[in-house]
């Protein structure tokens, strides 16, 4: 466990909320890396505008991601005298620099480590009781000897003691009394858990950053609940295995990132045509091509929405926070099974690899409930692709007597036999569209909050920053709404019109160089033609609450 995780855990045990992301240089292992923490007495969903403390045990080549470590002149840089000069790109922020001999202090404690000294120092500076570390350290060191634990606690204490001489920066305040049950979870684990709660029992996948941890969490979890994760030879195999398992009646999923999604596209079209439910979680990273594997971006929206060949309507969803990764993935399983269609869930590196302290999510009723057929009346012929009122046709699961059929990616008639007739093509295209557009998705289609004649439209992980920006702007007297669609496809024009009723100006916030979300909104929704402003930038730099607030206030 890293020092950053211990700090987050200790704060959580002391009653605080927080989140921790990570960033690093290009090395496979070792090299410069930073844990990016935000701690707060109230739940937080996005990185803050800047850091109050930057503590460096070593600098190495930290300048390579200096832009991801914004500081102000009020921030405090704590550096070990052994670590050398503060890199110019960091010093340029103008923050106060103090030295703390962490390595030297650690040497004085048998078994002491510099990162434990650092933990103690930060705890002291932000006002976190050192006692909060006892349980966290105990857990982290459970397999080691008692003296290792004692050495760590001594080091934390020594760090706290040494930091007393440093001038305090921002303090954490006091935790809320009466806390609800809380979890510490990453977006990747939350998505995996949501999938399992939704009923997924078969996963096939190929490792790829930043989706791998979702799969590594799911593999043992599936074993426990009677499912299985198969490591496939590539993404072509992954998606087709998942489709094969789903054809067999088992709710199935695969998870990947952009390059893997690109390989899966043909088979996702097969799932559309053969009406086989399957969930594909795409944990987005910087693209195109191999891009920036370890860093976030919201640039797979186009491929997820429009990448399939042919007219191939399918579900596209996006969670709006770490906690929402659970809800949205579970809902995606439910929807995919209900409408017998593939669902692409767009998570991203920033939420997937962020560990957050959240209030325990509510139990959800959304589970896989596929319409199946169990028996036929004598002499009745089973029609797998029957044209029903809802467009959803009861599916025969292999093993069901009398209902044998061949699922097909070739266009087909109602029975499933291949057909190139215009009438069958139109009927089946209509059916596959209407089962999606006629479905009642309810209020979960989007996060809709606030009031006023200004609206901010965003999606995915930038939602948290926008929500915080709106709270800040409200303190400045500006009222605005937040609309973040969770269900990106099929679009919900009537619900959007209702959410935007009375809105005069719209700010679109997204993390894509091409403004993919903005173009999607223009294509799928009736937005006012003027007074729609786009605030976008590519990854990996997060959209920060302060700059969104600035944009909004500049409109007055």
């Amino acid at each position: 466990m890293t020092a950053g995780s211990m700090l987050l855990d200790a704060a959580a045990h002391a009653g605080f909320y927080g989140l921790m992301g990570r960033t690093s240089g290009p090395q496979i292992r070792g090299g410069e890396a930073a844990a990016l923490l935000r701690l707060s007495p109230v739940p937080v969903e996005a990185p803050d505008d800047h850091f109050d403390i930057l503590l460096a045990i070593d600098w190495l080549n930290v300048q390579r991601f200096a832009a991801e470590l914004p500081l102000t002149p009020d921030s405090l840089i704590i550096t070990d005298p052994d670590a050398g000069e503060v890199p110019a790109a960091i010093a340029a922020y103008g923050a106060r620099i103090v030295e703390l001999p962490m390595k030297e202090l650690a040497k004085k404690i048998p078994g002491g480590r510099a990162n434990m000294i650092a933990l103690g120092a930060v705890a002291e500076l932000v006002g976190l009781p050192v006692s909060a570390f006892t349980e966290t350290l105990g857990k982290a060191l459970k397999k080691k000897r008692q003296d290792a634990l004692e050495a760590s606690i001594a080091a934390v204490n020594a760090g706290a003691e040494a930091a007393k001489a440093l001038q305090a920066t921002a303090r954490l305040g006091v935790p809320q009394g009466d806390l609800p049950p809380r979890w510490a979870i990453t977006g990747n684990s939350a998505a995996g858990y949501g999938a399992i709660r939704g009923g997924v029992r078969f996963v096939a996948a190929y490792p790829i950053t930043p989706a791998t941890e979702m799969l590594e969490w799911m593999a043992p979890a599936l074993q426990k609940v009677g499912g299985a994760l198969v490591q496939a030879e590539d993404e072509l195999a992954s998606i087709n295995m998942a489709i094969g398992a789903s054809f067999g009646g088992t709710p199935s999923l695969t998870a990947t990132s952009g390059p893997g999604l690109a390989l899966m596209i043909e088979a996702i079209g097969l799932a559309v045509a053969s009406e086989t439910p399957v969930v594909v979680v795409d944990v987005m990273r910087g693209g195109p091509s191999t891009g920036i594997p370890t860093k976030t971006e919201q640039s797979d929206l186009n491929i997820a929405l429009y990448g399939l060949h042919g007219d191939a309507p399918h579900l596209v969803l996006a969670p709006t926070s770490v906690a929402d990764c659970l809800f949205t993935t579970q809902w995606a399983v439910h929807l995919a099974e209900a409408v017998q269609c593939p669902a692409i869930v767009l998570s991203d590196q920033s939420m997937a690899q962020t560990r957050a302290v959240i209030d325990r999510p509510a139990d959800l009723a959304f589970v896989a409930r596929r319409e199946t057929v169990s028996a036929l009346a004598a002499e009745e012929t089973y029609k797998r692709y029957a044209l029903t009122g809802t467009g959803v046709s009861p599916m025969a699961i292999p093993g069901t007597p009398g209902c044998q059929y061949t699922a097909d990616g070739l266009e087909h008639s109602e029975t499933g036999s291949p057909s190139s007739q215009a009438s069958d093509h139109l009927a089946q295209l209509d059916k596959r569209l209407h089962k999606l557009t006629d479905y009642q998705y309810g209020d979960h289609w989007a996060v809709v909050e606030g009031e006023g004649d200004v609206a901010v439209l965003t999606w995915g992980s930038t939602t948290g920053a926008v929500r915080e920006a709106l709270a800040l702007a409200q303190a400045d007297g500006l009222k605005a709404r937040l609309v973040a669609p969770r269900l990106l496809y099929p679009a919900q024009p009537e619900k959007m019109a209702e959410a935007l009723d009375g809105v005069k100006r719209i700010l679109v916030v997204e993390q894509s160089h091409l403004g993919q979300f903005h173009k999607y909104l223009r294509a799928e929704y009736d937005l006012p033609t003027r007074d729609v402003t786009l605030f976008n930038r590519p990854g990996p730099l997060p959209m920060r609450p302060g700059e969104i607030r600035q944009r909004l206030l500049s409109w007055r």
Partner: protein
Amino acid sequence: MDSKTAAPALTAKDFKSDLKPVWCPGCGDFTVLSSITKALAELGLRPEEVAVVSGIGCSSRLPAYLNTYGFHGVHGRALPTAAGLKLSRPELTVLAAGGDGDGYSIGGNHFLHAARRNADFTYVVMDNRVYGMTKGQPSPTTEPDWDSALTPGGTGLSPFRPLVIALASGANFVARAFSGDPNGTAEIIAEAIKHPGFSFIEVMSPCVTFRDEQRQWKTQVRPSPVPATSDRSQAARRLMTDDGFNIGILFKGDRTPYQPPLRARMTAADLEAEFAL
């Protein structure tokens, strides 16, 4: 009541669907279809217990002509689709079927890994050394000097050797059959289905439209002079002197099939404990 014992015995005909094949008259795939139905009937299986998965090509049209469950997927991906089905529903009898282009070219990587993974299903390749469906291009098993519009003068490439690759990749059952001998093919298919693990059958199945000369295969094939071996290296040595016309089961291994246990020890709700603070 056990429905299996009560149900009347089925014949090969009961495993055929009403759909008329799109194949050219004389195509070898007709008899492969018959051999499969015969094998399934002889094994006493019920149509609903069987699923046949395929990719794309003339040969890959086969599942719809059966009265079993079927999945006609995308080009080259029959093996992973079949694996996903078998691993999640181990009680089903699963077959994958397709052509040489589908299995050895676009799906070549899956062929290696299906053999290596050794899930318990049977793969029937109808090899006609040509892409039939796209009207006559060379496949990985085509002779180097076979002339085509796409490869004037031939590819100049030495052919892929399916049995060698299957054996080297870990397949647990390796055989060659000839569509002109439907009874022999049916026997091999039945043996393959019964044998645990990944069973591979290369069926020489002439394309009378684009490789008319393959009609001569019936004069060239012969039953393998030696019985199947369970020794992988002996099987490999036999393949070194094999001229491609020996018909029969080459190898029957004893590898344990890959199959995750699928046994629940707790509920999904129980997993919550690891996140709770």
